[in-house]
């Protein structure tokens, strides 16, 4: 953790001192810190970063904007875009507007200096949010003066709307009356809409009711629709009268009657529904299904004498009118077509016996009566449902008609009964076993499938569904599905079983699915299963079978050429790269053991460290760092060291990530200055660090001894590092290459602080004071500077006092 850029050049010095924030960071450092945190993962991180960036505006804005390059291969402008659009969002929040003017100034200067058209357009698009609010004005529509003097209906409508909006009421109403005489249906209805919006339904209703009798039939339909949509009760007489007409007028009136409601219209609707079948009775049924209020008695009365009983029975069933049961049952007994179908809607517990008797002897309408019987018992608890059906079954010899109802009780006893009946040869009982929602039926179905291959197609799908729905034990579920896969004899069955298997997030299920990746029928379903399980499992996954199966699955997906499967391939690639990155627990080598190295972090815990254990967390064998910059975001060894060899592995998971190793440092200070030194850990290959000084690059003794600038491995790959500290000598080796080998005292000619006691130290390469440089001992630390660094296999050799 350190200040990345510190430029000691004439004006810039003045500038950076001016721009330093509460943490004494320069603008450059603030910018680097913000960029390293882009995009922010949540609101608090966002606000923290943007506050800093805004406070350092306009310079911070200009600096970020300058880093943008013309778009092209390998150019990654997005972090700058996140930062700039983010800071604009931040300062446009009424709670954070302090630096809005400075941000705008920065954007304007940056846009002026920007020569790339796309980037310039981006900067200018952000300026808009910071200029005094100026909305895009609505461009006024062209006015048309007289609605009568144009041919196009839409222009007449537009003109009429303006008139209605601007005319006094009397004149507006006159326009409406004229419009209602117009022969164009579009114009009539549009004007009716404008007038309704302007005057309200109460004002319009009396006028429209008066207009109705003299209106054309087309206008009457419009008015009937209007009366219905606006529920104009005072128009009930008109609506009532219109219901007696034919065609569209009657249809509109019936629809309006349903919406307006009331006793008179309700009775007439029922009357129409019960009249001999016509288009009108279908309209009446729709209207009555949504009719507000209790119409049960009228419907029951009408059922006695109506010509069209079907419509009334349909209505009674749809609205659960139990009082209609006797009438509908009577119709059933008379052999009225479809009456059985409606019984389910009206039957209740009091009708069990009657329906049971009917079912016992029924030769037709059996499914309808089964529904009706279930309807009678469905409000009981399952056991009670079972005993009711059971008592009916026990009394009859032809029991087949009851098995479907028995199955619907879903009880264990029903499973047993159905199994027995099936053993005795009842096909209806097998259907019951296929229907019943009870997991105890599953083993029976499996036995049937195993003993009679001709039934596999019938019973196996249901078996798989049952296992999928009910089996909670994941191992058991896998075994069940394995059984199913072994006897699955069609493509569809294999796919069904594999789709169910995909829901089991265990490695064993993964491997089972993997066995079907080469199956020509099921490879796609197997690939899906493999991918889904790999995504969901929390088990240890890093082994050769895992990667081999995933690679095979990716091939299956890529061979389809389907766009969505492209996403699946990407998903698998992500899973594979995670697998390659995950690490086993570390151990000391034999040689290290002999030399006396101590393991500080072997992948399991941070017991040998102290400090910020929230910012440093052991996850999957590595230390994940999320610690912030400052005196608190550090992780220290438990004891202090004088001379030592410190070895560890690190990798960057995010572009520009930053950390460091503090040497001989006290706790709670900035090790680069108050410790002996800090050895930089930095992804200096990130574009934002292109202009870094050598004394700031990875491995440098920060601000004191420059390092050879290495090229890091790609993001996500592990690198090794050794830091050897003896006396004033520091030697840093990364990936086997020595990049620093020097003496801190010699590097500053013995002047770790400015001889004049000032802030500028001409002897250190960063021109800063390093008061802790000659510490004889202290802790070894990791110095937090945001997230994106991971560490593992950390070990130390204590060399004590020996030189």
């Amino acid at each position, binding site marked *: 953790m350190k200040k990345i850029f510190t430029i000691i050049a004439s004006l810039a010095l003045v500038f950076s001192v001016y721009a330093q924030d509460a943490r004494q960071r320069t603008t450059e450092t603030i910018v680097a810190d913000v960029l390293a945190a882009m995009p922010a993962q949540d609101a608090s991180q966002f606000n923290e970063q943007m506050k800093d960036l805004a406070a350092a505006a306009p310079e911070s804005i200009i600096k970020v904007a300058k880093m943008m390059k013309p778009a092209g291969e390998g150019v*990654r*402008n997005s972090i700058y*875009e996140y930062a700039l659009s983010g800071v604009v969002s931040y300062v446009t929040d009424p709670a954070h507007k302090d630096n809005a003017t400075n941000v705008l100034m920065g954007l304007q200067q940056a846009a002026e200096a920007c020569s790339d058209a796309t980037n310039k357009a981006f900067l200018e698009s952000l300026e808009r949010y910071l200029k005094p609010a100026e909305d895009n004005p609505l461009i006024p529509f062209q006015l048309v003066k007289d609605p009568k003097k144009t041919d196009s209906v839409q222009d007449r409508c537009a003109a009429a709307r303006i008139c209605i909006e601007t005319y006094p009421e009397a004149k507006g109403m006159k326009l409406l009356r004229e419009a209602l005489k117009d022969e164009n249906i579009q114009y009539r209805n549009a004007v009716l809409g404008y007038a309704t919006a302007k005057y309200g339904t109460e004002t319009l209703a009396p006028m429209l009711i008066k207009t109705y009798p003299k209106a*054309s039939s087309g206008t009457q339909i419009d008015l009937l629709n209007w009366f219905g949509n606006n529920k104009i009760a005072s128009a009930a007489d008109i609506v009532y009268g219109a219901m007696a007409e034919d065609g569209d007028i009657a249809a509109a009136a019936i629809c309006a009657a349903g919406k307006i409601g009331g006793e008179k219209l309700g009775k007439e609707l029922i009357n129409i529904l019960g009249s001999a079948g016509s*288009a009108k009775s279908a309209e009446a049924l729709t209207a009555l299904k949504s009719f507000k209020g209790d119409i049960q008695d009228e419907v029951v009365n009408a059922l006695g004498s109506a010509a069209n009983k079907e419509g009334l029975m349909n209505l009674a069933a749809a609205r659960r009118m139990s009082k209609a049961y006797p009438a509908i049952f009577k119709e059933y007994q008379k052999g009225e077509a479809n009456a059985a179908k409606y019984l389910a809607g009206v039957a209740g517990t009091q009708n069990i016996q009657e329906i049971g008797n009917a079912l016992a002897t029924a030769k037709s309408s059996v499914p309808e009566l089964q529904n009706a019987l279930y309807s009678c018992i469905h*409000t009981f608890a399952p056991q009670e449902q079972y005993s009711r059906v059971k008592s009916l079954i026990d009394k009859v010899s032809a029991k087949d008609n009851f098995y479907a109802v028995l199955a619907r009780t879903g009880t264990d006893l029903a499973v047993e009964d159905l199994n027995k009946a099936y053993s005795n040869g009842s096909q209806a009982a097998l259907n019951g076993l296929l229907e019943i929602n009870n997991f105890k039926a599953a083993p029976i179905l499996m036995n049937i499938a195993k003993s009679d291959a001709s039934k596999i197609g019938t019973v196996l799908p249901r078996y798989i569904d049952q296992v999928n729905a009910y089996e909670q034990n994941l191992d058991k579920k896998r075994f069940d599905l394995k059984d199913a896969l072994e006897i699955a004899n069609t493509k569809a069955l294999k796919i069904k079983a594999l789709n169910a298997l995909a829901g089991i997030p265990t490695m064993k299920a993964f491997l089972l699915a993997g066995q079907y990746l080469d199956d020509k029928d099921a490879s796609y379903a197997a690939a899906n299963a493999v991918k889904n399980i790999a995504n969901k499992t929390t088990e240890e996954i890093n082994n050769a079978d895992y990667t081999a199966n995933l690679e095979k699955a990716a091939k299956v997906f890529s061979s389809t050429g389907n766009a969505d499967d492209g996403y699946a391939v990407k998903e698998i690639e992500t899973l594979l790269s995670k697998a390659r990155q995950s690490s086993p627990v570390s151990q000391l080598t034999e040689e290290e053991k002999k030399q006396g190295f101590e393991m500080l972090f072997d992948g399991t815990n941070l017991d040998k460290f102290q400090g910020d254990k929230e910012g440093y967390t052991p996850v999957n064998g590595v230390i994940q760092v999320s610690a912030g910059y400052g005196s608190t975001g550090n992780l220290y060894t438990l004891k202090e060291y004088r001379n030592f060899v410190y070895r560890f592995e690190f990798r960057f998971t995010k572009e520009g990530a930053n950390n460091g190793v503090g040497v001989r440092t006290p706790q709670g200070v900035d090790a680069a200055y108050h410790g002996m030194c800090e050895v930089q850990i930095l992804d200096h290959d990130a574009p934002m660090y292109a202009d870094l000084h050598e004394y700031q690059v990875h491995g440098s003794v920060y601000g004191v001894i420059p390092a050879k600038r290495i090229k890091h491995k790609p993001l996500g790959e592990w690198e090794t590092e050794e830091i050897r500290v003896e006396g004033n000598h520091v030697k840093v080796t990364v990936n086997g290459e020595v990049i620093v080998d020097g003496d801190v005292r010699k590097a500053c000619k013995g002047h770790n602080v400015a001889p004049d006691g000032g802030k500028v130290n001409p002897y250190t390469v960063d021109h800063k004071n390093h008061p802790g440089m000659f510490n004889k001992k202290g802790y070894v630390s990791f110095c937090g500077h945001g997230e994106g660094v991971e560490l593992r296999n950390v070990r130390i050799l204590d060399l004590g006092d020996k030189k």
Partner: protein
Amino acid sequence: MKETRRSFLKKSAAGLALFTILPRNVFGAMNGEKKYTAPSDQLTHGIIGVGGIGMSNLHFFSNDRCRLVSVCDVDKDHLDNAIAGGKEKFGETLKSYHDWRELVHDPNVDIVDVATPSHWHALMSIEAARAGKDIFCEKPMTRTIGEGQKVVDAVNRYGRMFRLDTWFRFKDTFYGLGTTVEPLKKLVDSGLLGWPLTVRISGATGFAWKFYWTGKENLVPQPVPEVLDYDMWLGPAPYKPYNPHRVHQTFRGYWDYESGGLGDMGQHYIDPVQYILGKDDTFPVKVEVDAPQQHPDAVGIWRKITYTYEDGCKIILEGEGFESEGKVPYIEGPNGKLYKGFECTIPNIMDKLNAMPDPEPRVTDFLESVRTRQKFALNEVNGHHSCTIVNMGSCALRLGRTLNFDPKTQRFINDDAANLLINQPMREPWASMM
């Protein structure tokens, strides 16, 4: 001039009045039966945008009741494909246009299907209204709240009929609920769950947010394919260098054109909730987002978006991978919960609901709406309301903060930057057409 059927219809309103004396069932979709239609009753339509959805049978159809006569696209490959499809499927020689304004002003077209990416929806709908056409527009209705306001105004001003293309508020199984919305509406109207209600739209309740529809950052400019008029594809959207990921199937990942999975699925999921909650005439007053910072161009993912209405009702969207654990109710009220598959904590709920009157019937056949001038079940007004909820969410995501909304003025409260997102800049000549 020769008296064609169309010029007859346009000139003479009697032509329209004529329909009204025909038996309704000639053109009504009664009992789903297809009835014979006299040629003079046949409506016509033209499709703008014949890529993905425009080529689906939602738009690309031609039958007795409504004939497909023209198509338009800025991609020559799409257009050629549609012309071939017209021949093959309907035996029609479709008129084809490159510039949608010509299709909109084609006197042979009654209904304009807007099936382009959503940054075009408002402009095309408004111009179609101005040209006296009725409109069948793809969801999401508009890309900004302001565009929605202008569509509502134009459709009303010119006396047009408008249908938005999502349909769960009036038909089909509503995702994880395993029913149409009608029983949900009855359940809510019954008051049995109590009030206020919280609706959770989440993978856990059967609604996937399609997070793979995110954009890509650091796009590398590429040459525009010869068959594509990229400038016309962009239209009102800001000019950005071409990359194939911006257009066609993947355009949803960019704020300039839509808003990712939220834009794509949001109106499907949220529109029925407005209906169920009886909120069709209002909007939430607050939107809160929990999300990583959004890139200014490429749409990213989010964890949670919470909308709150004035009366305390809430709609909570849970992002893919951030769903609540355990058994999660779709609707939750003080007195009961409703889960996926219409599982309810209130016993025998279906009996209770069946005994209640159905919700009021609505016009769910757009051609009937066009003929009778009665508003379609999902029209510009309630469509604008539900689309505004989607757009409020994208505004809050883009700014990364909680926004408060005034349902009366349809403006954000005390947030100038958010209000700037209500109407976003358009390039000319398109801006002047709004």
